[in-house]
């Protein structure tokens, strides 16, 4: 996956965010979003290790060993930021106080089931806050390439990887398209770049409905 592809996915996901929303960004593609928000769009970034009001990466001399995000990377805090403990942070998440979670996934099913924390038979030792976020956030936006590095579709009839949560995704953004979950059905709502419906169909290992009401992305 090239940086261009990642950036294009992140840029489209960024356009799902509305001013004033509280947003939690997963590692990878979602973390590109802050740099891609339009000037007028101010969102409040929440990181589950206990900070609302995450600012940009620190410049030289700004590094604070007590100030990291959930990816354990150094961050800054904006004016009006608040710190809290992990129980309070996950109370915010589980209690529905985070407007949007943007996160990567290994698979998303046509019912909106998400698998994003483990590969079967190995690596089932790190879940972090993934399950809490996809269950608790009011809207869950999945950002991922349409297919895996081995060419397999990540949109599937049913997840074969260990589940993160059932029926949790609201929006799926890939480099080709935007899908939305409506009434528990997967609907293609937008083609991105030069992608065609046939290309999306070829890259998607599961049936979907089509309702191209959204304008084609610039």
């Amino acid at each position, binding site marked *: 996956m090239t940086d261009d592809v990642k950036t294009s996915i992140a840029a489209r996901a960024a356009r799902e965010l509305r001013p004033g929303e509280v947003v939690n960004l997963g590692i990878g593609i979602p973390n590109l979003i802050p740099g891609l928000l339009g000037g007028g769009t101010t969102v409040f970034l929440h990181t589950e290790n206990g900070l609302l009001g995450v600012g940009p990466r620190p410049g030289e001399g700004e590094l604070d060993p007590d100030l990291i995000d959930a990816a354990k990377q150094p961050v800054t805090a904006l004016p009006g930021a608040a710190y809290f403990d992990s129980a309070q942070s996950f*109370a915010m998440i589980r*209690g529905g106080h985070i407007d949007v979670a943007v996160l990567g996934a290994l698979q998303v099913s046509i019912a909106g089931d998400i698998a994003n924390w483990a590969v079967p038979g190995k690596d089932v030792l790190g879940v972090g806050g993934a399950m809490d976020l996809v269950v608790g956030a009011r809207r869950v936006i999945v950002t991922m390439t349409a297919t895996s590095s081995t060419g397999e579709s990540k949109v599937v009839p049913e997840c074969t990887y260990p589940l993160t949560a059932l029926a949790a995704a609201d929006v799926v953004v890939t480099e080709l398209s935007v899908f939305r979950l409506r009434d528990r059905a997967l609907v293609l709502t937008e083609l991105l770049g030069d992608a065609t419906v046939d290309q999306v169909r070829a890259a998607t290992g599961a049936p979907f409905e089509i309702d191209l009401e959204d304008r084609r992305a610039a």
Partner: protein
Amino acid sequence: MATANGPIEPEEAVSLIRSGDTVMVGGFGLVGAPLTLIDALVEHSDADELTIVSNNIGEPGRGLGKLLRQGRIKRGISSFFTSNPEAVAAVNAGEIQATLVPQGTFAEAIRAAGAGIAGFLTPVGAGTLLAEGKEEHVVDGVPHVLERPIYADVALVNAARADELGNLWYRRTARNFNPLMATAARVTIAEVGEIVSTGELEPESIHTPHLYVDELVLSR
């Protein structure tokens, strides 16, 4: 859900409360109670058939005691109705329904609602009148009660200080139930003593982060 447009008037704030709503009201007795909002609810709203979630139903003719006298409370959920003899009389006369909850369970159930916890097991109340009709679970030989969250449509809370984003700081024992209630309602309205510039509150000392606060109102 920051409060982008500055404080609103109490009259506008209470217009968010509709008949039949469940309304949480902060305070332990009158300390930490949002008295400006309560007065606005009494004077500038017609909402009735209200369920009030508050540790007390005010005092006679004070705080929520005013709303009680107007006959607009259908049900109270409290740990201590007794601090307002008129509330006790209203319950005994069948004019309002009363749900009495041990104070710790009351606090925890409000926290649970805000924290996405659908139930919790507490030993408190097990084997007493207040456990009647509730599921009992024995854990390590000790009887526990399965308690459910207490949600609200609107929470009216009181804080000494807010910043422009709606972060809140409470003073001394005026904190009590306010931070919990701020998390447990669809709409949270915070009555505050003052609004300082964003950045003036110490980030480690903010008791209620702004994502819980929908509207700010200045105390009168």
